[in-house]
């Protein structure tokens, strides 16, 4: 490249800058991949826990509903559902008696964009409908149908992605400064024997072809070659 476009030699990026860029790129890539995979894995783990939580809610809701279902008390069933829906993340809950007749049902209203996103996430990651039989004296007297809301999952996902973006930005700013401060002369110095050998070869074999060119690299290499000797 140098031989073909000698006039561009001045603008050519230094080795340090190249290394800095490569470093930054690798670091960003590694960071992005790691955090993306971490987000995905933890989202899966979270969805498993959310599924368990949904089953737990269904089981704990079946107990207070038992008497109300035995006595066919629709208002009592509705009240129990309302009480639990106030605190838990439930999209839809319905109670049926043993003949499959609906005793009471409750939907959490929501038509916003966030709600539809929650629903689609819940459809994707949560069990569709948790069906918990309501039993009394060993007999099934009814069933509870419960479907969850993806609020926590969506919050986690948005938080994770925002965190990823923020840390990538921080990395871009901070890593650049850090690299500049800490990895100044080590790599070029370590690469010096190779570059020295290459330049020696060029001086011996190639220089006649581009004689008269103001190539100043030999002076710099000369200076840099001495540095490891001084430090030892």
């Amino acid at each position: 490249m140098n031989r073909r476009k000698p006039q561009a030699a001045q603008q050519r990026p230094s080795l340090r800058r190249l290394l800095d860029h490569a470093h930054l790129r690798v670091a960003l890539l590694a960071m992005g991949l790691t955090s993306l995979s971490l987000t995905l894995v933890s989202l899966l783990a979270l969805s498993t826990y959310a599924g368990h939580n949904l089953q737990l809610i269904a089981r704990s809701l079946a107990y207070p509903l038992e008497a109300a279902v035995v006595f066919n008390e629709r208002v009592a069933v509705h009240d129990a559902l309302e009480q639990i829906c106030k605190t838990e993340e439930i999209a839809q809950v319905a109670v049926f008696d043993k003949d499959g007749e609906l005793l009471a049902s409750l939907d959490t209203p929501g038509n916003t964009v966030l709600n539809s996103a929650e629903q689609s996430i819940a459809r994707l990651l949560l069990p569709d409908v948790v069906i918990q039989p309501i039993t009394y004296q060993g007999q099934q007297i009814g069933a509870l149908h419960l479907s969850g809301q993806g609020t926590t999952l969506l919050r986690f996902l948005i938080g994770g992605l925002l965190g990823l973006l923020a840390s990538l930005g921080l990395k871009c700013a901070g890593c650049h400064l850090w690299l500049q401060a800490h990895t100044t002369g080590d790599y070029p110095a370590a690469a010096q024997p190779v570059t020295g050998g290459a330049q020696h070869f060029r001086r011996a074999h190639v220089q006649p072809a581009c004689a008269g060119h103001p190539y100043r690299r030999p002076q710099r290499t000369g200076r840099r070659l001495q540095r490891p000797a001084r430090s030892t």
Partner: protein
Amino acid sequence: MYLTRILFMRTPRHLLCSVLLALLPALARAEASTPDSATLRANQVAHVVHGILSYARWPQQHDTLRLCVIAPTEYADLLWQNHELESRQPVQAKRLLVDSPLLETDCEAVYLGVIEDSQRIALFNRLVGKPILTISESSKACSEGSLFCLGISDKHVGFKVNLDAVARSGIRIHPNVLQLGRRAGPQP
């Protein structure tokens, strides 16, 4: 109209008549299968009574629960039949007179029908403090000492509970049932 005319013209009339006659019993059965209001209420009352009995615990547990039916009743007909809720403890129903001395000794539960006020008050005075679960058909009886009283309507049979009488009787009732009984009787 045109179609029916064609049908009548083409098919022999006696065939049509016989088909209609054959369909009659099926139609009659369809009408008979929808229970009337009294049966519906009796069914629901039996369900609620067996439900209450299944949620109650007596100081001394018995193998069978003896349910005594007292006074003329409107909806007690199905209490003699087996019910799905008595799987844990079979219920044995029998009729007794109001002044029968067997009431205190032979009954764990009493189902009280329609009765004069003075007789009812006298009966509750006899039964107060004894481990006998009283269920009344009339909803006024709760204030007079009955543990449970039913509120009966076509759609739903609810019940009220007299917590004071429950506490004095020594019978333990499941708290969920007490909570249900605290809601005001029959529902719309």
